[in-house]
């Protein structure tokens, strides 16, 4: 049943199927309709479902995300596309003070089944205002869930799960993943949306990562294998909640942890990973757990500086090597 698809096509397919099955599903955002989506993700849906179900909005992120919240309150299943995460700050109030809090504030009367799709990440010299990784902005918000698919299959599964769910869910897509290819089985039973995936088993260290960095971590693991370092690579798939059990199981085996994130290091997403896993697995560690993250600088436009400001495969290899060194020494 599996077929090869690009990541954006998998997202497109997920929406198409859900829209076909449930007429309360609708999409809204800038240029999602007639234009077909600035990253093509909503391609073809406007022609198929018409303007009320694929709604081109004015440039009003705060407003149209609030529209999504209102629609969710009456049982619709809106999918809000925020063109990129760089504009999501304008919609943050609608998400945090609206979507995430209404279930509690209403004493449980109103679930808010809102999906917010947001591409992000550094991608080809888009400069400081267009190269942000703001996952941490949503992580501290109780009441939200966050999915971070790194493969076409996960993109398909997690977006379908998000649409079908009655929870407010942010789906963080990565601009550099849209044209990544992968096999997608459209009928297979998916794992729970928040279950982490062990992408590569290994015994020497655990690399915990997500989104595009999970792919880089796998590349790095292949490099490391050549040097005799056997890394286990975990792709979190979900940033809220985080599947700690899968991580802890791995750490109890490898005794080493490297967290890799594209986010700026200081108070980025990785801080929670390192903190929680330390609280939980402290006695398992043979070496201090480490983060590898983006530099604490707004992304410069210049290509070489941009590249140097977020982790590259070689950086992951280096960090893993350093992390494993003391033990190798100890073994000598």
């Amino acid at each position: 049943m599996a077929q090869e698809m690009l990541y954006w096509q998998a997202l497109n397919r997920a929406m198409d199927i859900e829209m076909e099955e449930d007429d309360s599903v609708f999409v809204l955002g800038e240029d999602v309709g007639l234009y077909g989506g600035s990253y093509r993700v909503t391609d073809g849906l406007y022609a198929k479902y018409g303007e009320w179900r694929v709604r081109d909005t004015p440039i009003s992120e705060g407003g149209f995300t609030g529209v999504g919240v209102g629609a969710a309150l009456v049982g619709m299943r809106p999918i809000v596309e925020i063109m990129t995460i760089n504009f999501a700050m304008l919609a943050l109030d609608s998400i945090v003070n609206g979507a995430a809090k209404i279930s509690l504030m209403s004493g449980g009367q109103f679930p808010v089944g809102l999906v917010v799709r947001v591409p992000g990440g550094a991608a080809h010299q888009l400069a400081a205002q267009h190269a942000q990784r703001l996952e941490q902005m949503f992580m501290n918000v109780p009441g939200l869930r966050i999915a971070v698919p790194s493969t076409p299959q996960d993109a398909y599964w997690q977006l379908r799960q998000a649409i079908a769910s009655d929870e407010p869910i942010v789906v963080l897509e990565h601009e550099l993943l849209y044209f990544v290819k992968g096999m997608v089985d459209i009928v297979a039973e998916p794992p729970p949306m928040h279950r982490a995936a062990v992408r590569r088993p290994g015994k020497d260290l655990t690399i915990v990562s997500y989104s595009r960095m999970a792919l880089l971590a796998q590349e790095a693991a292949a490099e490391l294998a050549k040097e005799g370092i056997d890394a286990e690579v975990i792709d979190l798939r979900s940033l809220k909640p985080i599947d700690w059990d899968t991580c802890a199981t791995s750490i109890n085996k490898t005794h080493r942890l490297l967290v890799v994130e594209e986010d700026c290091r200081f108070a980025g997403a990785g801080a929670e990973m390192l903190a929680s896993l330390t609280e939980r697995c402290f006695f398992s560690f043979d070496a201090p757990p480490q983060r590898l993250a983006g530099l604490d600088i707004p992304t410069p436009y210049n290509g070489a500086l941009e590249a140097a400001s977020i982790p590259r495969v070689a950086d992951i290899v280096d960090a893993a090597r350093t992390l494993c060194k003391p033990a190798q020494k100890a073994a000598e």
Partner: protein
Amino acid sequence: MERETMHRLLRDMLLARVFEERAAEEYTKRNIAGFLHLYPGEEAVAAGVLNAASPADYIVSTYREHAHALVRGVPPGKVMAELFGRADGMSGGMGGSMHMFDRERRFMGGYAIVGESCPIGVGIAYSIAMRALPEAVICFFGDGAVNQGAFHEALNMAGLWHLPILFVCENNHYAIGTEVHRHSAVPELYKRVAAYNIPAEKIDGMDVLKVYDATRHALARIRRGGGPQFIECETYRYRGHSMADPDSYRPAVELKAYQAHDPLSAAIRNLEFRYPSPEELAAAGPDGISRLAQHMVDAGHVHEAEVEALKNDVQKIVDDAVQFAAASPPPTMDAAWRALNCNRHQEVLI
């Protein structure tokens, strides 16, 4: 207009007044905490607008929404219990004064971020339009909200997509301490709405019959496919912005401005709070409640004695509401988690 309707309007206004004054009392007794924004003075707006609505319409409101909930028919005991933070409150004690919800009555919540009610209201209206239902949304907000980006973004979408929503601006002249001409470049707020191709009018918000009529007509236009409508109700709050605003600041600030030896003191004097003196208030005529009562007496619809009886009824209702609230148990932490997790049908993930 029918006697029954007028009677109902009068009763609703009286209930709102007595309820709110009692809430103030319970706040000073510490039975109520948090921010408490009261409605006295503005009753004609809630009563006039919501009596013109149908049960199938949706209401979206602000943090000053107790009277909206009462007029909409929420049992006063449930409103008071929410203020008390009790399990039988409208929001199970989770929301408090600023966040009252009632799914059954399509009371879609009080929101405390100024301007936030507008896009939420537009989202509900969008859903109605998508389904081509005969329903409408009534969206309340204050004069201060018209300066928020969210207001404009929402009105533009409502106008652009021709949605079934009635925007009701409760213009009580102040956003906390800032008078309308000091916060809006065009102080005639309804005029700003021309920017969105939405019909807009200004109503005397102290006259419940005018509010009721204007709302009926606006809702009729919406149901005929006329798209969004806007009414600005000019009104006045008799109390401070909230119970945390001791009202005493007004003369104190004035005094300070007068005493200042700064070259700007004259300018400050010009800008001084226009909070009316008792004389000015009297000159401005009676408030919404006494005006309607007088009208009904004059027209022979009620006797003075009936008005008195109504007042007594309402007093009793409010007393009962307080008793109900006081008797209600506090919610448990487990209830809080269950409320939050209604989204996920209580599924435990991690």
